[in-house]
């Protein structure tokens, strides 16, 4: 499968990836001028966290080989595609139990701010050739690479 890879030392917490993710998933349009940063409907699927030395760490869905979010999902909303390796989230199937949020070992998942009813989850830009976050990373911290087998 293809995975968004991360070189942590190159991250300078510029948040271009976060803005890119919001722009890509914005229902109002994908351009940067369509983006309203105060619109709670439009949340980023990735985020940057800081450790106690304030060193930034890009927190991106790994589309894990053994995905806890899929194992804990009781509605069938979270599934891993055995061919692409992508872990997809279907909000229509989701029962909002949030076992996935509780179980993602890396704290990638959260509930949506506005309705508290769906999960904010990376979809690798739904088939886009290069994910928008990767395309907008100015340092080379993010890149896509084939990582071989998946389940």
């Amino acid at each position, binding site marked *: 499968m293809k*995975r*968004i*890879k*991360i*070189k*942590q030392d190159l991250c300078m917490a510029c948040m271009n990836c976060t803005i890119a993710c919001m722009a890509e998933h914005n229902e109002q349009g994908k351009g940067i001028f369509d983006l309203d940063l105060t619109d709670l409907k439009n949340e980023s699927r990735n*985020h940057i*966290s*800081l*450790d*106690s030395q304030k*060193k*930034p*760490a890009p*927190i991106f869905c*790994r589309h*894990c*080989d053994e995905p*806890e979010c899929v*194992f*804990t*999902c*009781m*509605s*069938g909303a979270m599934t891993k595609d*055995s061919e692409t390796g992508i872990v997809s989230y279907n909000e229509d199937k989701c*029962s*909002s*139990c*949030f*076992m996935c*949020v*509780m*179980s*993602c*070992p*890396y*704290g*990638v*998942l*959260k*509930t949506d701010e506005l309705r*508290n*009813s769906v999960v904010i989850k990376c979809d690798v830009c739904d088939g886009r050739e290069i994910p928008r976050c990767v395309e907008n990373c100015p340092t080379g911290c993010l890149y896509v*690479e084939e*990582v*071989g087998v998946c*389940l």
Partner: protein
Amino acid sequence: MKYLVLGASAAGINCAKTIRSLDKEGEITVVSKDDKVYSRCMLHHVVSGSRTIENLNFVSEDFFEKLDIHWMKGKNAKKLHIEDKKVVLDDESILSYDKLLIATGASSFIPPIKNLREGNQVVGFRDAEDVEMILQEYSHVKDIVVLGGGLVGIDVVSGLMAKKVNISLVEFADRILPLQLDKRSATTYEDLFKDNGVHIHTGVKAEEVLLDESNNVKGLKISSGEVIPCEMIIVATGVRPNLSFISENTVNIDKGIVVDEYCATNIADVFAAGDVCGTHPIWPLAVKQGITAGHNMVGKEKKLEDHFGFRNSLNFMDLQTVSIGIIEPVDDTYEEHIEEDGIEYKKIIVKDGIIQGAILQGDISYCGVITTLIKNKVDISKVNKNVFDINYADFFSVAEDGSYEYVV
């Protein structure tokens, strides 16, 4: 190779799926008492009317066809013969196996309270049939008592709230959800339910069901002396594993079927997974046990590496809570950290640099890190931070294949 899987819920389905992914040729048969695949944890959404039973299917419509699995639905195992490796079903058909998974789940336990088992309108909350019975009856019903304020009981209450009925909840402990929540977080939910018209009776026992001469339910007498008028009682006081088809002195049974870390029983080629094991009846463990058993049934050795069952997420009336590990400090060697902001509440319990438990109510964003720290007993003493601000950045490391790892 002939694989036989008894049960088509979390454990059985995931076992069958795993077997097929590892053995393309093997003959797989799944037997289930259910004639549909559905998520039991979501049945309350059918009570509320927000979903149908069909909407609770957690696999694709063509699951059995696509994976070439023979599904015998609406059938129960009647007898397991370990010597000749056969299972007799209730329609007298006989199935032989090379490898067997027992994932028959559990059934509602109706406790021995006076007249409870005799009442016509007394129902558990476990199967699609229970929900059908509730939906058939409830139009003639004004008042419903839910017996048991654990997760299932509170699910039932939240499902019933969409209906025009009076709901009373009876719980023996001093608060609802006593296994998951402390007093503060339980009270928040109790207040929300009360504001929505639910009558909550905690710290009381059910003593006697009042019946009319035809055994129709008329009320429930509780230990305070009060009689709660009701025409239906939904019982959510726990479950017992479905083991009736297993003869004594064959498969080892304690609280349920005893399995080792490979999900194998004491009998060769017989495996078990899910609620029938009677340990931690939570969905993720049933799934993982099913997957583990599946590997070992095919002959690919796999150990169950996750036994951590003390975790649950709750979402009632749009207020989310997660409960992980212990919910109260055991003694004064445990530090209790609390953060409160209006309805939001966070409590983290630490001992010797290890987080032992957490309750997070209101904001659960990115909380899977806390679950992992508790589950894996990760030492946080080197992290120079407020415990509530700890996140994955404090343990961040990327492996060769791009997956994340924890580095302490």
